[in-house]
């Protein structure tokens, strides 16, 4: 008999009051925390993640960024279960190489997104516990963000937050980038500098209120010139 506490709430600690005899099964999943964010602009894309790796009440590492560079124009952010993140990025790298060798060109961001969707769905009945967000430039050079759920449903967005603090960050992005439900505001297009500043502010807020987010922030800015990485310290407590 499973209690709802064991599986219903991922990543949150189990209650310590006595609820009666409980059967604990080995779970192949663990929740390692972390938050990922991606924003797309007219000619740039930003993928940012915190660098804390935690499990339960402990922190395993303060320097484990969750952005992985795939090609010169695409970066993926994976948060959730770290074991599945590592395996998934290895599989994606292998598939990218295979594509490059058989088609003699690098995969575009849209193609990587479609491929990742089928990779994730291939494990429909034992999923990868990973929340993915791909950020990159599409064929026309415009910024593109593709957000996924753990079993492969995806779509193209302008901005998306994923991971443990996603429920806190997404409304803020809806307000600041999407101008949702605001009357009488001018929709100014987002510049790269403003977007980077916004991402920094947003992560500082997330680190305040989410215990699994903090330590440092890694920002990857993707433009047609290449990928530029910056690291910024966050709260360490």
């Amino acid at each position, binding site marked *: 008999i499973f209690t709802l506490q064991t599986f219903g709430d*991922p990543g949150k600690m189990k209650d310590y009051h006595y609820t009666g005899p409980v059967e604990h099964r080995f779970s192949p999943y663990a929740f390692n925390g972390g938050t990922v964010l991606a924003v797309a602009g007219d000619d740039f894309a930003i993928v940012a993640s915190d660098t804390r790796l935690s499990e339960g009440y402990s922190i395993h590492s303060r320097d484990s960024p969750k952005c992985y560079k795939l090609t010169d124009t695409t970066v993926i952010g994976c948060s959730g279960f770290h074991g599945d993140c590592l395996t998934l990025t290895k*599989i994606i790298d292998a598939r990218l190489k295979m594509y490059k060798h058989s088609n003699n060109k690098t995969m575009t961001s849209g193609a990587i997104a479609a491929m990742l*969707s*089928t990779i994730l769905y291939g494990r429909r009945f*034992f999923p990868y516990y990973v929340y993915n967000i791909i950020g990159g430039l599409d064929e026309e050079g415009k910024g593109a963000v593709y957000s996924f759920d*753990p079993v*492969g*449903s995806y779509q193209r967005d302008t901005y998306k937050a994923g991971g443990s603090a996603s429920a806190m960050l997404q409304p803020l992005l809806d307000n600041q980038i999407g101008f949702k439900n605001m009357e009488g505001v001018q929709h100014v297009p987002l510049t790269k500098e403003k977007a980077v500043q916004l991402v920094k502010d947003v992560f500082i807020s997330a680190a305040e209120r989410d215990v699994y987010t903090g330590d440092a922030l890694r920002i990857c800015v993707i433009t047609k010139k290449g990928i530029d990485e910056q690291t910024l310290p966050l709260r360490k407590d």
Partner: protein
Amino acid sequence: MALEDLCHFRDIFQEDITTERFSINLLHFYIPEVEYLDESPIQFAFPLPTNLPFTSSQTVPLPFPMAHGTTTLAFMFQGGVLAAADTRSSCSGLVACPASQKILPIHSHLVGTTSGTSADCMLWKRILARELRLYQLRHSRRLSTRGAAKLLSHMLHPFKGTELCVAATLCGWDGGELEDECHDHEESAGTTKTQKPDLGMTVGPSQGSSFTPQDSSRKARLSGPRLFYVCSDGTRLEGMLFSVGSGSPYAYSILDQGVRWGLTVEEATSVAREAVYRATHRDAYSGNFVDVFHITSKGWTRRKREDLKEEYYREKERQRLERKTQHDILRANTSIYSQCLAMPS
């Protein structure tokens, strides 16, 4: 036992389960084994390793919830088929995506609405589109909507009893097959497809004298709008009106009142929009925008996505004006009444 021998019961356990699937002996009962849980629904470059732990005993309880909850509807009328859906994708209380697409075009004359788990619906629609395209290339004609519904239903059957959840309505227009060889259908653009006038509902054949009158009348009977409901638990139904999802009871009430065969396209669009709007108002798991697709003999067209928040505010404004006029009438009546009372009798 005699019955055992007749049914070849022992053979089922001794033979390999994968060859069993293709056995043509009618007395071999097809029992979906739990090994299907190991098989990937789609095989690409990597065959799935069979030595994964925890897959064959039972499905691993997931630490995350899946996306569910929606309102989709589709109905047939004299102008074709109309499909409408909301765009909210929720995940046990959190709106995972306020602008998801629940009506997915499969090919130029077939559109499917999706309900259930969004990943399942998206991927199975992709698989169905691939299979229909292969059929079209092999047989140089499009598979009918009925055939597509049957194909989807049979593809989902091995996964019956698992947590796969797909409830789709396939809306299509059959007919006009012979022109397809000349056209390369672009399925990505959302604009009206221009085609040569197809056979459609017309009776006279427009090409060749090899058609017999029986052929042409059969074509007329087989072509036209079609609507099918396919569910992952095995249901496959043909009908004129379907609504699927958590908001469907509310949508059904509007549709049952407003849908008739003789509607014009504008009237049908407004009924569909109204049904989705009312359902989103009452159902917590539906909301945000409404998508409307219209399928005719020329293909599908998509109406611009509409924000229901505007509609809600227009409705509030209308109610406010109504209340104001009612209030004015009431005041006018009471003042007349008090004047009558004040007058000396």
